[in-house]
């Protein structure tokens, strides 16, 4: 008796419950907003990556063959603006944070769902301004907009670019606000602060920085726009204005901003290392409090960007010693991650590969930051390629690898599909190798004294630049692969079980992809965090 094959019972989930463009563009479901962010942020990342490729192409030769100086300046400015404000800052909080924090704390949604959608539209509006600037002529001030060049001498679209970032800032503020209220007031019963996943701790600290720091760059750009647009001189030396004051206001936000970029990645790495070692993170409280310590101390150290800018040496002393203090929590995290792997059951899946890469590269990035924090060394190395190498090691080696690790870790939960293990591991290795070849030589370039933002450079720097450009092509290829096999997995990937990696978070207790309300009934948490003895799911062996 041949019975008809059982109708393929497609589980009801947040993706197929409601369909149509309107259901996406007017959604208030934190998971759909996360997907909207994923699409747009990936688009901006690609755009920023193209500019990075153009820069490396131009720098393969000492003379300015590919572009005019003016064009080159606009390209590196757009690379900076897009990567910092439109990829690094929103990437993990707006995509992974939005999707996962309500699920991790057992809530149905964020505290203010409509404000969450509003923050996406504000991000889009900021993006429209920046694309307008890009297509109508670009801005050539660098992503730092130092006055008086940006306010009186630049002929780029400084006002429009400033407004674009001004608007984009509010998107980050609203996301931060949403997270803080949600984490405080909407945890599931029994979920005390020390049972929270470290991912949530990291985002709590990140949101605190976003709330306390972003408004200051908003007002700085507001003053810049006033000065350039209405000739009201705030920083204009002709009236006795002080350009160093602009730098103080700018870096008061922009240094904590680098912690906005790295803290979420640290949250992801804590989760991934713990899951793939099947072990509770060693020193859970130390890792949790080091996130908060980074958020607090992060606001005291911005002056290390101004050591040679005409800042008084006494202030420089204070900023230098505080910069060494702020480096300690990061060191604590790295050592605790390594200790977590001790005596674990380690599975080298793709997320774990990226996490191992993160720890290695972030350690190098952090240590070169410690090198730059010393006054005497910074005098020689600031504004050279040493600084470029340092912050790319932290931003690409750290934040980007953390983002990729998180994306590969929660992809099955977000889309209910598994991706190809082979291709994802190949891409991880390519990214790691290409990255080191791109930015490793730049440390040596930096000590040789090649200044940053140079369109033309003396011939003795060419060897390192060619190596770096070669590395960039490998890195570029490595980063293209995920776009291929991840989108491929959406259609052809095998269906993902609720808990493919054997993880312990609440988000793994519900189906993948989850239903709109996340949980049929709000779970009550009774066990400590990261209790792997309770995990019985079949574990996916890549």
């Amino acid at each position, binding site marked *: 008796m041949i019975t008809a094959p059982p109708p393929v019972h497609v589980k009801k989930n947040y993706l197929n419950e409601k369909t149509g463009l309107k259901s996406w563009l007017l959604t208030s479901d934190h998971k759909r907003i996360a997907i909207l962010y994923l699409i747009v942020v990936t688009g901006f990342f690609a755009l920023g990556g193209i500019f990075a490729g153009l820069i490396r192409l131009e720098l393969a030769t000492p003379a300015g063959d590919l572009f005019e100086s003016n064009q080159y300046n606009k390209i590196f400015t757009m690379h900076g603006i897009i990567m910092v404000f439109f990829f690094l800052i929103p990437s993990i909080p707006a995509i992974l944070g939005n999707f996962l924090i309500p699920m991790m704390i057992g809530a149905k949604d964020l505290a203010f769902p409509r404000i969450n959608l509003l923050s996406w539209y504000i991000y889009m509006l900021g993006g429209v301004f920046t694309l307008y600037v890009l297509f109508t002529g670009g801005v*050539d001030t*660098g992503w730092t907009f*130092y006055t*008086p*060049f940006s306010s009186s*001498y*630049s002929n780029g679209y400084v006002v429009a670019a400033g407004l674009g970032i001004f608007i984009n800032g509010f998107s980050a503020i609203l996301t931060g606000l949403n997270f803080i209220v949600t984490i405080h007031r909407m945890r599931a019963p029994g979920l005390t602060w020390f049972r929270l996943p470290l991912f949530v701790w990291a985002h709590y600290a990140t949101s605190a920085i976003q709330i306390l720091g972003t408004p200051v760059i908003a007002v700085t750009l507001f003053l810049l726009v006033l000065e350039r647009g209405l000739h009201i001189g705030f920083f204009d*030396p002709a009236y*006795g204005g002080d*350009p160093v004051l602009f730098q103080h206001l700018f870096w008061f936000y922009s240094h904590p901003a680098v912690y906005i970029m790295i803290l979420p990645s640290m949250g992801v790495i804590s989760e991934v290392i713990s899951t793939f*070692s099947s*072990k*509770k993170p*060693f*020193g859970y409280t*130390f890792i949790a409090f080091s996130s908060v310590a980074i958020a607090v101390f992060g606001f005291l150290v911005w002056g290390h960007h101004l*050591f*040679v800018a*005409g800042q008084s040496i006494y202030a*420089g*002393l204070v900023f*230098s*010693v505080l910069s*060494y*203090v702020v480096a*300690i929590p990061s*060191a*604590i995290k790295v*050592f605790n991650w*390594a*200790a977590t*792997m*001790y*005596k*674990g*059951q*380690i*599975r080298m899946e793709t997320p774990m590969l990226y996490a191992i890469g993160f720890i*290695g590269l972030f350690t*190098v990035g952090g*240590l070169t930051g*410690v*090198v730059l924090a*010393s*006054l*005497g*060394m910074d*005098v*020689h190395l*600031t*504004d*050279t390629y040493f600084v470029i190498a340092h912050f790319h090691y932290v931003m690409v080696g750290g934040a980007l690898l953390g983002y990729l690790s998180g994306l590969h870790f929660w992809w099955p939960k977000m889309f209910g599909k598994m991706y190809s293990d082979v291709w994802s591991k190949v891409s991880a290795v390519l990214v790691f190798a290409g990255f080191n070849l791109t930015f490793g030589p730049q440390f040596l370039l930096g000590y*040789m*004294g090649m200044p940053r*933002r140079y*369109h*033309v450079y*003396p011939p*003795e720097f060419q060897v390192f630049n060619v190596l770096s450009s070669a590395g960039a092509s490998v890195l570029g290829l490595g980063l293209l692969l995920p776009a291929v096999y991840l989108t491929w997995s959406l259609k052809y990937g095998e269906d993902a079980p609720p808990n493919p990696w054997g993880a312990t978070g609440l988000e793994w207790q519900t189906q993948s992809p989850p239903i709109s309300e996340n949980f049929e009934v709000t779970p009550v948490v009774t066990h400590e965090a*990261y209790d792997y003895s309770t995990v019985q799911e079949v574990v996916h062996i890549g």
Partner: protein
Amino acid sequence: MNIEPRSFQLFPDSASNFAGTVDGLYLYMVLISAFFSLLVAFLIIFFAVKYRKRPGAPVPPPINDHSIGAMILEIAWSVIPLGLSLVMFAWGASIMFTESRPPKDALNIYVTGKRWMWKIQHLEGAREINELHVPVNRDVRLTMTSEDVIHDFYVPAFRTKADVLPGRYTTEWFRPTKIGDYHIFCAEYCGTKHSGMIGWVHVMSQEDYNKWLSAGSGEGSMAEEGESLFRQLGCGECHVRDGHGRAPSLRGAYGMIVDLADGSHVRFDEAYIRESILYPQAKIVAGYDRIMPTFHGLISDEGMLKLIEYIKSMGDPNGMTLERSGPNEPANLQKTGPQMSPESEIKAPTTAPRASAGTGKQQ
């Protein structure tokens, strides 16, 4: 004089008194960083291999991370890195302190950054663009300002740089220790030709330097040109040398601490001279009223440096005696307003000085 392009170098030349200590600090830091990076890398790779998942192995029991041993471990890997880094801090701070205190007898050279070129003036009057000739083993102090945006005078071989700010003076000093030619770079983004704002430092033996200096341009020294500018602008009418004029005497004033009308004090240095010429009523000396007109927009940056050099030379006894224009100068106190002469240092007035801030008329 063209310099033949250099070939590949792995390490920059060390050609100044700072290069040695900075390289030493760098070596210390590289060793510490290498040690910790390799330690962490080794740990994670070793653990990843040693504790890889054996099929069917039970879930590892959680390690008690609140035990005494764990606490000692946590404190250890906080305090040890902090200790090592504070050595870096102290060493770096000491280098920066020496770089911030130029010796008194240093050879003073004025640098003016203008979009995309370096204009350098020597006291003896020699002027250069994008070239800096200095004698070897002699302390050189650069007093720098910018005419437009922020630049940065960076000589990698000397391991020093300092931003050059518009509206303010900044200082950088070094003692070249090796004869040769070294790159000058602009290290603060300043616009289209930022990468073109480069030049060469020519470190020469003392004799070659003296020969170069004397063969330099025939104009008078900065102090002499400053003195003629001082007279042309009519500064001498109020700033009478013997102190009886309506304004304080500038003789021997440079370097002193001056009491101001509002009770505060300020050092009579380049910054104060410049501010009082451009914004005279900002810091009025105690006992004098606010009658000095503003010269904002009337004096070029080079002219300002010449005036400063002249005011400096008024004070020091072993400086050039300028008595010849002293008391026998015809008293022309009733002359009103600075005569406008098309001298190159006096720019056409962009903002015409208004009658209200005119010289000495309104009382």
